């Protein structure tokens, strides 16, 4: 079965990202395909490359990155929700006159249309919201 995930909870504030990651690995372990993860609402903070938890805690951004590397899972981030919350790529930062950026590949800033496309492509879209 093809799965997609919608993550709307912030890292270290809500259990949603941890739950989504565990679900992602469970889906893959059972032989299903995970097509992509879409980050929306406060979930966009998962993409921040500046997150620096203590060394004995899971770095959620690195965990998503590993998921992409090992299983070729697309990591799409809603551009409107991200920019509003200060999560921004290098090209968007320069376009808006900022000196710094905190989002880079494999995360991709994209439109909400990508969420709807993911939902249409997958047999199941599972939401992790809080």
């Amino acid at each position: 079965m093809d799965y997609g995930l919608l993550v709307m909870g912030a890292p270290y504030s809500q259990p949603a990202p941890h739950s989504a990651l565990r679900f992602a690995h469970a889906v893959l372990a059972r032989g299903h395909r995970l097509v992509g993860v879409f980050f929306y609402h406060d979930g966009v903070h998962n993409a921040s490359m500046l997150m620096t938890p203590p060394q004995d805690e899971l770095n959620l951004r690195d965990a998503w990155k590993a998921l992409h590397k090992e299983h070729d899972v697309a990591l799409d981030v809603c551009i409107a929700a991200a920019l509003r919350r200060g999560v921004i790529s290098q090209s968007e930062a320069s376009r808006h006159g900022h000196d710094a950026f905190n989002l880079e590949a494999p995360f991709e800033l994209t439109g909400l249309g990508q969420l709807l496309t993911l939902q249409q492509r997958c047999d199941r879209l599972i939401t992790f919201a809080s």
Partner: protein
Amino acid sequence: MRESEDLLVIIRHAPHDSNWLREGLDAALVGAAFGQSVRLLFMGQGALALCREQQAGAPGQKASLPTIDMLEMYDIDQLNVPQRVLDDLKLPLEALVDGVTPLSERQVKALFSQNRPILNF
């Protein structure tokens, strides 16, 4: 690819309760812009988004009512709220914007039992 393109967007948060309402409505608008037939269901506190004559939020917070008012321009004319929610919140239908259709428990159940994509906010 699914056969049904009838998207159900569920709003469960009141206006100004974080950005849930605004970003939920954005998803509905994009669905409509992508040619999907979109139905909005306002549940729980989400029904408060439909109150007519509501004001903007705290200083600097953008009002959400103008977005609700322009949904029809995007062909989103199915605005539903369970009658039980209106009863719980003591909201008469006249207190809401035009074009809202209350649903019975049975009708709400039927919405969920149909095979359609759903987004929850």
